[in-house]
């Protein structure tokens, strides 16, 4: 059996002990829960929000989580005397068809930042399909903020070893990829060398578009070497209840996003940097683009212009890409024939072992031994397994 993927129990534990994040969620839940209400907990992990909802009087909680960590919630619900008040749905919230809409939806499916994979789509779907009219959403709103930063360590990761290395080698071919690699960092407050600007307000009560774009104009507060733009977020879970992962705040499970400039920029206070920033959800992941124009003193025309994108940080083989084009005609292969045969044998009557044996009979050279065949068949069967039956698959992803 191959290893399960996803968060470990240890990493789920790290989320629960992450402060002040957890205290803020606790306070928001305590304020939102009314006796007997129905709560849906999306991305429940091991179910801490579900347990707290019961503690504060919820009549019923639906805990939704695709990872196996949710299995622990059944034991913990029983241990706390709430087994009859918590229902576990192992899967995606977009697959969940509720019997009753929620009075409160609590979630935290952010990654490094709120603009992460399908986080926004998940919240939009939950608001539209799972939340009762007038229901409460936790979190309520995230605000992205940004500033110029001086961070020699992150700046060096862009230029070394690609433009400078102790071996005197020309490794410049790697520099464009490093220079376009936005990354998770934890910077201190003294890294900030400009005013702070609001980038975007993600109001989860109204948001529909997972994309984001903003234009920023920033100047350093003193003569500084600027290595890039830092983005973080301030979360409002409910009115007056929130936390921030700004530089100088306690390090949380999230992170700040560092968007490097192609090269460090030595700037004076009357210089300015204009940045057009965009985050676009493509195929389940965000592509960040940042077009930077650097103006000296009060010049009308930029001295330099950089157009950077996280897309440029990936080495993509044109050959491999060509095989995804709509005009590409794939050729049949032995692997295709093998898997097609295995899938044809999954008819609800044969065991994995029986299917593996039949596959070995038809394709005797495909597997080294029966264990390898069994693992291959099991992985294929798992891939097409419908966890909740066909009627539950009504989500948008």
């Amino acid at each position: 059996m191959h290893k399960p993927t996803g968060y470990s129990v240890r990493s789920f534990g790290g989320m629960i002990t992450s402060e002040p994040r957890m205290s803020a969620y606790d306070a928001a839940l305590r304020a939102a829960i009314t006796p007997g209400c129905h709560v849906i907990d999306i991305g429940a992990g091991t179910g801490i929000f579900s347990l707290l909802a019961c503690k504060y009087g919820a009549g019923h909680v639906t805990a939704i989580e695709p990872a196996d960590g949710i299995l622990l919630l059944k034991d913990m619900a029983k241990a706390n005397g709430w087994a009859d008040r918590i229902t576990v749905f192992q899967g995606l919230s977009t697959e969940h068809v509720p019997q009753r809409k929620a009075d409160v939806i609590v979630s935290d499916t952010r990654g490094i930042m709120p603009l992460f994979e399908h986080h926004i789509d998940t919240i939009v779907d939950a608001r539209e399909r799972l939340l009762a009219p007038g229901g409460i959403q936790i979190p309520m709103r995230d605000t992205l903020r940004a500033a110029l930063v001086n961070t020699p360590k992150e700046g060096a990761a862009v230029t070394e070893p690609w433009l400078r290395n102790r071996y005197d080698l020309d490794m410049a071919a790697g520099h464009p990829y490093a220079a376009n690699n936005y990354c998770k960092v934890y910077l201190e407050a003294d890294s900030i060398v400009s005013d702070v600007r609001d980038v975007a307000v993600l109001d989860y009560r109204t948001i529909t578009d997972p994309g984001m774009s903003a234009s920023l104009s920033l100047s350093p507060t003193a003569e500084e070497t600027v290595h890039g733009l830092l983005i973080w977020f301030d979360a409002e879970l409910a009115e007056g209840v929130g936390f921030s992962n700004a530089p100088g705040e306690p390090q949380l499970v999230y992170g700040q996003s560092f968007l490097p400039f192609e090269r460090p920029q030595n700037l004076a206070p009357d210089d300015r940097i204009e940045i057009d920033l965009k985050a676009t959800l493509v195929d389940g992941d965000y592509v960040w683009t940042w077009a930077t124009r650097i103006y000296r003193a009060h010049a009308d025309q930029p001295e330099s212009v950089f157009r950077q994108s996280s897309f440029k940080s990936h080495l993509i083989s044109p050959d491999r890409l060509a095989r995804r084009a709509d005009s590409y005609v794939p050729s049949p292969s032995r692997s295709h024939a093998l898997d097609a045969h295995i899938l044809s044998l999954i008819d609800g009557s044969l065991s994995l072992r029986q299917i593996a044996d039949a596959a070995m009979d038809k394709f005797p050279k495909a597997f080294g031994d029966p264990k390898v065949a069994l693992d291959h068949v099991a992985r294929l069967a798992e891939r097409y397994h419908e966890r909740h039956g066909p009627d539950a698959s009504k989500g948008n992803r």
Partner: protein
Amino acid sequence: MTDPLTLSVTPSEDSVDSTVGNETVILHLGNGTYYGLDPIGTVIWEGLKAGQDLSEIRAAIVAGYNVSEDVVEADMRRFVSDLLEHDILVAT
């Protein structure tokens, strides 16, 4: 129908590229589609990014590669039409 080679074209603001060796992959952020360019396509693309017009690029390819002007024109016509159709290039 307008001959694409008579148009003034430029890369769309929604197009981002990544070059590996002498080949290029373009992603259109608006529709999420990928597009691959061969070495000659990469030369045309880099020329357009640098603000060159199509006649300058055509002349550079004819001079730099052992290819007839007719072949270059036909290839460029197909290339520009294709990228306009996919919104990777826009007519200005």
